[in-house]
């Protein structure tokens, strides 16, 4: 999966959790929790959805990687590659 495809997957799952959020409008290194008003339950739901959809393990200790779009895409690419 290319980084663009991973980004699209990430955005889709964020949209499922927060339908009115627009992840495309924020900077890649911005904290999505602040920018999109995602709480810890939302973040857990996004990670759970990515875990199920992409079939990869995401240990709890790696959760901070998902605080930015850039971090999440890099992390997912590495786990899938």
């Amino acid at each position, binding site marked *: 999966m290319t980084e663009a495809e991973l980004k699209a997957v990430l955005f889709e799952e964020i949209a499922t959790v927060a339908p009115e959020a627009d992840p495309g409008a924020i900077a890649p290194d911005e904290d999505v929790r602040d920018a999109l008003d995602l709480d*810890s339950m939302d973040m857990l739901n996004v990670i759970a959805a990515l875990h199920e959809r992409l079939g990869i393990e995401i240990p709890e200790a790696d959760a901070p990687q998902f605080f930015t779009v850039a971090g999440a895409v890099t992390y997912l690419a590495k786990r899938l590659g």
Partner: protein
Amino acid sequence: MGLFKMPSLGSDMEDGTLVEWLVAEGQAVKRGDIIAVVETQKGAIEIEIFEAGTVGKLLLDVGETAPVGAAMAEIVGAGEAPAVASAPAAQAPARRAPEPGPVAASPPSQVPIASGERVLASPAARRLAAERGVDLASLTGTGPGGAVISADVLSADTLSADAPAASTQAPEAKPREPATRRGLAMGEMRKAIAAAMARSKREIPHYYLQHTIDLETATAWLAAANAERAPPDRLLMAALLLKASALALQRYPDFNGHYIEGEYRPAEAVHPGVAIALRGGGLIAPAIHDAATLSVDALMAALRDTAQRMRAGRVRSSELSDPTATVSSLGERGVEGLWGVIYPPQVALIGFGKALVRPAVVDGGVVPRMQVQVSLAADHRASDGHRGALLLNAIDKLLQTPEAL
């Protein structure tokens, strides 16, 4: 035979407007089934039934407004003969057929809320039409009695040039899309919050207590538990805080109940209302039923399900009508502390700030420790500060043995 009545979803509710029947005449129902969607000041609420039986005659039409306590439908109990001969079980239309009234073509006549020129339309359709700039009067309604329903607005909007993607549904699609049929009305919700909170501050003699709880043990336990779990099974600190609060409320019944007509009535079970902030503003505190008896895993699942449904605007009647106390947890993006306003007729609100590492004195030395501030806002008519302190201390103690929660 019994009557299913418009439920009271909070002391501030006077009436509700039927948005949709989810059952048909002749259909069997069981306890807990969602049988209708009713628009209230808090938004569109899923109404549950608490008896088993068969739906008899539906007494309320879509779009009709009825006061709390008014009959909505007849319910035939098990073993009783159905009173409605015209509704055989096999024939189960999705909704009631339009009344063969004298003037089927002139819409407003059968709607109490109609005032002369007002177009007959469901509240969901009205909201949708307002959002999309569609003129209700220009539409031909396909709902009961010619009422304009969401599908009519969607199909009309599809015809316009700038139709958004969501409007590609076929016009005959059932108006069940969560984004259109359900949803919490923000302006109305603000009014409902204002009324409840103003009443609280006017009537309830609040007293406040505050305590700092060390969360080192709970944090370590949580990290160890989550390390072995796949993401969908992971726990949040919020679940531990809620379980500890529920157990403490069970132990100190002077905080778990309702103050009604000059008298405090302790509740038999612990149904904490969990404050959930809605994106775009607004707040709702649905009950997590029997939280004291649920395992932490079950509580986490309930929290998750509830938060998702609230944010999708899918609220169930029982969740709004019976919380016995409120637990508000600001979470990791909040601030250190909160001081609650009690939701009447409840008598207590337990508030958790954001957990964070702070300097603490342990064995004579200053060390960094994960801590959380917990507050209690309680009704002095029902309890005193001494008991409140016992409640907060109990929560503290319970959180020191998270494995036992």
